[in-house]
């Protein structure tokens, strides 16, 4: 494998929502920008077929006192993992991005006005703008190319190259054709926007590894690359779990307008009895493990119950599902004669994935490595899904371009020993005649993650054993993985990335000696008030991992 070379000012890794927004703003700052996208940016990532709620602060709707909305965010399920200054900066710019999207042709006002509908507690301010995003990626990719952004599709990035604490480039494998092509990109700044980490824990149904709520091609590349490069990851010890239809993993629970009911049809939570589009049932947002708890206690199953929902609200809900990209679900229900006026659909809690757990960024969107930025789902100290990706992608891209202007020449990425090492590793994987498939390695990882760093129980002895097994798995995988073409090599590399994410989870879960939220330590079954306002970071130095505590920024 002899690498192909490309030069640019700003390399954006991932052509998802954050990546495209970063690329556009970098281009507007005059940078030569390349987006390296693993799939095809027009339909890649978790926003591929749409979204319908955009987290946003609009003074004319919410009033001029933004602190009310800041509090609403911090009180919500995602707020506990925020550095508040990032929340504030996000809210300040969120309406500008919504207006951009609106102007570019994404339907941000499907009802004619800026409407905040659903996804809220009774009597509290609403912060989710209802929009119609089914063609958002088509619009964003067009806007990016209009600004001169060059997108290279089918180019998954495997590593960022860092020299003397600064980013100088990246390595990728072009997978468009049957034969993989190693690609070396020299860049002055790199923005990581590779989405969540799926396939780390077992999927919603056994054997169907790609049955995940978020895009199953998003496999923690940003977290893994940043970690290997020495950047800090934060909040990795906290599992994040979504809920949705049982066995058919889909994001977008908030779009359902129904009440969660028990087998006898009684509402499980206190918030609503007759759901409306203004107020769906928010019980499962507050009681995150509702579906698992109901099931384990024997009181389940628990259902999404839309039978009391008015016909017009049901139609509205189906339209919302279409706009958020859940058309496969709609079609399935139609084919299977599932009529939500009569039928209740069982829900479940899915296994954890990494969203809002990962790269620590500062107010510029920069990581602890100079020139290395991150935005969207793989950021560890902020999270607001689609809007978070849009706003922080934009911020990170602008700052990446400003930095690139100050760096005089691109460094010599090709001289990095990492290039030689990865070339050797990939060639070995490709030339083995016998050996492990990537699926074996991925399933092996999932069983270790769920049994030793799971959601139900964690303890020092279990975590230590799990970390040992995980490292054995990495060694065995490196020694035996085989791939016969570009596609399977890409999957093998994804699996290795996931193993690195797993390592960071084990190390931080060991260090947080308390129970907090979904991080359940049986040997420390209490929350330690001294750790309540502390964030835990992990980074690599000289091959070892270093954990550090710091105060959460107020």
């Amino acid at each position, binding site marked *: 494998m002899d690498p192909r070379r490309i030069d640019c000012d700003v390399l954006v890794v991932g052509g998802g929502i954050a990546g495209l927004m970063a690329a556009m703003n970098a281009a507007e700052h005059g940078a030569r920008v390349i987006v390296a996208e693993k799939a095809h940016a027009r339909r890649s990532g978790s926003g591929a*077929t749409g979204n319908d709620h955009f987290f946003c602060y609009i003074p004319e709707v919410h009033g001029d006192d933004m602190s009310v909305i800041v509090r609403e965010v911090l009180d919500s399920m995602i707020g506990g993992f925020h550095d508040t200054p990032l929340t504030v900066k996000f809210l300040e710019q969120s309406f500008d991005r919504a207006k951009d999207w609106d102007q570019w042709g994404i339907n941000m006002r499907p009802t004619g006005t800026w409407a905040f509908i659903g996804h809220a507690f009774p009597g509290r301010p609403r912060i989710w703008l209802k929009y*119609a995003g089914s063609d958002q990626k088509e619009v964003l990719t067009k806007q990016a190319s209009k600004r001169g952004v060059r997108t290279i599709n089918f180019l998954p990035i495997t590593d960022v190259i860092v020299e003397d604490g600064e980013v100088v480039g990246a390595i990728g494998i072009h997978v468009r054709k049957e034969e993989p092509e190693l690609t070396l990109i020299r860049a002055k700044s790199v923005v990581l926007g590779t989405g969540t980490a799926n396939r780390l824990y077992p999927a919603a149904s056994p054997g169907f590894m790609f049955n995940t709520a978020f895009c199953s091609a998003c496999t923690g590349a940003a977290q893994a690359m940043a970690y290997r490069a020495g950047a800090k990851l934060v909040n990795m010890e906290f599992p994040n779990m979504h809920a949705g239809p049982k066995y058919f993993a889909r994001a977008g629970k908030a779009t359902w307008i129904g009440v969660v009911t028990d087998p006898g049809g009684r509402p499980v939570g206190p918030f609503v009895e007759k759901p409306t589009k203004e107020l769906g049932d928010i019980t499962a947002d507050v009681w995150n493990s509702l579906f698992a708890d109901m099931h384990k206690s024997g009181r389940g199953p628990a*259902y999404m119950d839309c039978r009391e929902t008015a016909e017009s609200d049901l*139609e509205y809900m189906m339209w919302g599902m279409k706009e958020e990209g859940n058309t496969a679900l709609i079609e399935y229900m139609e084919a299977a004669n599932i009529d939500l006026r009569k039928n209740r659909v069982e829900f479940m809690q899915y296994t954890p994935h990494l969203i809002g757990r990962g790269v620590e960024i500062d107010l510029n969107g920069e990581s602890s490595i100079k020139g290395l930025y991150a935005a969207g789902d793989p950021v560890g100290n902020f999270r607001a899904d689609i809007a978070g990706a849009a706003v922080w992608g934009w911020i990170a891209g602008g700052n990446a371009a400003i930095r690139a202007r100050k760096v005089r020449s691109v460094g010599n990425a090709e001289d990095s020993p990492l290039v030689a090492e990865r070339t050797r590793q990939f060639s070995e994987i490709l030339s083995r005649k016998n050996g492990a498939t990537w699926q074996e390695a991925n399933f092996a990882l999932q069983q270790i993650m769920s049994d030793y760093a799971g959601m139900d129980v964690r303890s020092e002895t279990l975590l230590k054993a799990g970390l040992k097994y995980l490292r054995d798995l990495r060694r065995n995988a490196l020694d035996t993985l085989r791939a016969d073409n570009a596609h399977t090599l890409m999957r093998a590399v994804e699996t290795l990335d996931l193993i690195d994410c797993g390592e960071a989870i084990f190390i931080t879960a060991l260090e947080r000696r308390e129970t907090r939220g979904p991080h359940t330590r049986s040997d420390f079954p209490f929350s330690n008030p001294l750790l309540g306002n502390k964030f835990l970071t992990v980074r690599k130095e000289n091959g070892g991992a270093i954990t550090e505590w710091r105060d959460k920024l107020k």
Partner: protein
Amino acid sequence: MPPVINEATCTGCGICAHICPTDVFNRGPRGAIPLVRYPDECWHCNACLIDCPELQFGAIELRIPLPLMLLHVGAEFDAVGYPAPRDGVTSTASPLGQAQPGQAARSATPEAVARGDGLRWHRLPRVGQRRSPDDATIPLRPTKVNGEKGEVHHGSETH
């Protein structure tokens, strides 16, 4: 498995194979009918159907595997919380379209598909053709048509 291509109506335009987020298809030479090469890696996102220019002629469909079937209950389950005596099963899932007693089959017949019944949520609306469930109460702003239906932008590729 998941996406199924109908060779009689697929024109081999290659769009599905290019845009799939999880690289399920083999991207062959231009004009070739794509091969569903990695069916186990389908995310069931429907993008390949949404973007297929020949969808109305049934060029591609998505088959949801049995383990992903939606577990649901109907009237026999109400109030008591367990199945009616003679039923004996707790789920009435019927993934491929046999109507349940008391329910009208809404979309599964070929005639219905030809009429477009049951396709109303997503098959038609694309850029420039937005629809809301109730155009009278949810006025949509007019939008421009951005380019040809199903166009893939090879322009920004490196090669």
